[in-house]
């Protein structure tokens, strides 16, 4: 059976009209905020070696890339993320630059095997930034403030929430339980789906006291402002988790002083899905989007795979999801230029017609050739 030529491959789409215009504007706003914080734009290769992403994002995510082979037989992919390419550049091309490096991007990425029913696309527009070579809590705050400013500039104030967690909390518990990588993944999934019943079952096989298991399952539901931290202190006993709580507490104090507590929440159930984070993790939620529209955190091991270990913090936003939220909100962010009324230019004499059109264009008019 032959497919009709009209068919579009699964997960691919067109974008036009108001949406196309809005998307371009959203991207421009995001990039201007990055620029305002002195982030330099980079574009990474659209086609790159599979091994780059295997090291950069881990094999479970890299497997989702569209794959093909190079003329020498090496495995190539359409980039499934931008972060990996940026990490490599930071230890090669930018190796001798002063630290910290501040880099940002906006680009399409391609992934197969959707991980949810909502995620039907296979081409995504991502915008993100990386702050590489700085380990201070100030750099964590910088990343959070940039994300916050972007959402405010997109007129989403009061309609977004950034949830904060620290990978150390989960990591400490996993270490305490002596989990192998597979069980670690299983536990991560149970916490991530906030499934207290199955988590309790999982823990009861691994803990001597059932009370301890019950306390740990409470973590999946523990969210809030400063009160959540205080409750977590009563539950967590291992050193690594407690250090993570101390980091979060310091971070929260700054957020409070900056008067931003309405936009943030601490949520111990909102764990990162990937195993590469090493400290702060955060997720971005916006009214009108059924899924997270952004995520990020600290991944101090990221560049190690490319030769030099450097601390790094960054985040990525899903520009398609943000655009579709804004599209339904009747925003005035849509480029007014393209909706200015066009002036028809009419003249039977071709040369005169285009002379007139050129004159009007020079004045900034929008023209429509009527021929």
């Amino acid at each position, binding site marked *: 059976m032959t497919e009709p030529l009209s068919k579009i491959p699964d997960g691919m789409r067109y974008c036009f009209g108001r949406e196309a215009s809005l998307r371009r504007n959203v991207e421009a706003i995001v990039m201007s905020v990055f620029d305002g914080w002195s982030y330099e734009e980079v574009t990474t290769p659209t086609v790159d070696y599979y091994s780059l992403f295997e090291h950069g994002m881990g094999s479970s995510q890299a497997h989702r890339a569209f794959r093909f082979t190079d003329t020498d037989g090496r495995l190539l992919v359409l980039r499934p993320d931008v972060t990996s390419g940026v990490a490599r550049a930071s230890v090669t091309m930018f190796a001798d630059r002063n630290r910290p490096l501040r880099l940002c991007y906006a680009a399409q990425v391609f992934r197969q095997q959707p991980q949810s029913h909502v995620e039907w696309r296979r081409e995504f527009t991502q915008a993100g930034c990386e702050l590489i070579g700085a380990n201070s809590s100030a750099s964590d705050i910088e990343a959070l403030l940039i994300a916050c400013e972007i959402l405010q500039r997109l007129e989403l104030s009061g309609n977004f929430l950034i949830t904060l967690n620290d990978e150390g909390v989960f990591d400490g518990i996993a270490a305490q339980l002596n989990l192998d990588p597979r069980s670690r993944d299983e536990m991560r999934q149970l916490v991530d789906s906030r499934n207290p019943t199955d988590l309790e079952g999982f823990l009861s096989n691994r803990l001597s006291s059932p009370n301890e298991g019950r306390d740990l399952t409470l973590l999946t539901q523990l969210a809030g402002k400063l009160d959540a931290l205080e409750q977590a202190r009563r539950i967590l006993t291992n050193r690594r988790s407690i250090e993570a709580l101390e980091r979060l507490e310091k971070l929260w104090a700054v957020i409070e002083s900056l008067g931003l507590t309405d936009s943030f929440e601490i949520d111990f159930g909102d764990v990162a899905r990937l195993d590469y984070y090493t400290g702060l993790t955060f997720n971005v939620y916006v009214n009108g989007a*059924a899924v*997270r529209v952004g995520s990020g955190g600290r991944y101090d091991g990221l560049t190690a795979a490319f030769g030099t270990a450097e601390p790094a913090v960054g985040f990525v936003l899903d520009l398609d999801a943000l655009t579709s939220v804004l599209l339904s909100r009747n925003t005035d962010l849509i480029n007014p230029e393209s909706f200015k009324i066009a002036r028809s230019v009419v003249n039977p004499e071709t040369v005169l017609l285009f002379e007139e059109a050129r004159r009007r264009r020079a004045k900034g008019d929008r023209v429509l050739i009527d021929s």
Partner: protein
Amino acid sequence: MMKLTIAIAKGRLQDESLTLLGRAGLSVSEEMLSTRRLSVEENSGRYRLIFVKPADVPVYVEHGIADCGVVGRDVLMESQADILQCLTLAIGYCRMVVASPSESDLREYGTLRVATKYPRISARHFGSRGMPVEIIQLSGSVEVAPHLGLADCIVDLVETGRTLRENGLRVVEEIAESTARLVVNRASYQLKTEAITQLIRRVERVTEEDRIDDRDYSKSR
């Protein structure tokens, strides 16, 4: 407080779900229910209930059209939807089993033919045991497939086991136990926190009562 939309699985679970929600303080008038409307307002005006096929509950919740839903664990295992499973309920108990008409060891088949409505659960189960299987997806009356020679065994949901017995099948292995779950959309959980938390607390209280009743009952026997 923001209004919540709750998706209820039609069929087996519907009545039990409504009774449970009723005890948690969410009531829908008989009049509303007797109509064939698939979307009804709860009396307090703070909730809207929608009635959809069980397999569609995770779909509505994942897309955020429904903020939460009541659906069996079996459906969640099959759909692998990316949603939160905040609460296990004490209703809709059943088991997901492998059943076969034959006495012989299923591991001894070159390729085991499995008839089921749950292709993913089946593939995962036999995959983890390293058994080669051919999965034959059906949409109902699965129990008759082995008898007619379509399959060597079935993977299906059992409540009492009567249908199995009447079709000459016996349970070979239990894959999982299933009860209903209260599921929640990820973004709703973060952005409608107050309303969601209140609903979870109310339903949790009723569910706890049932657990205690169950315990007393088994003790007295």
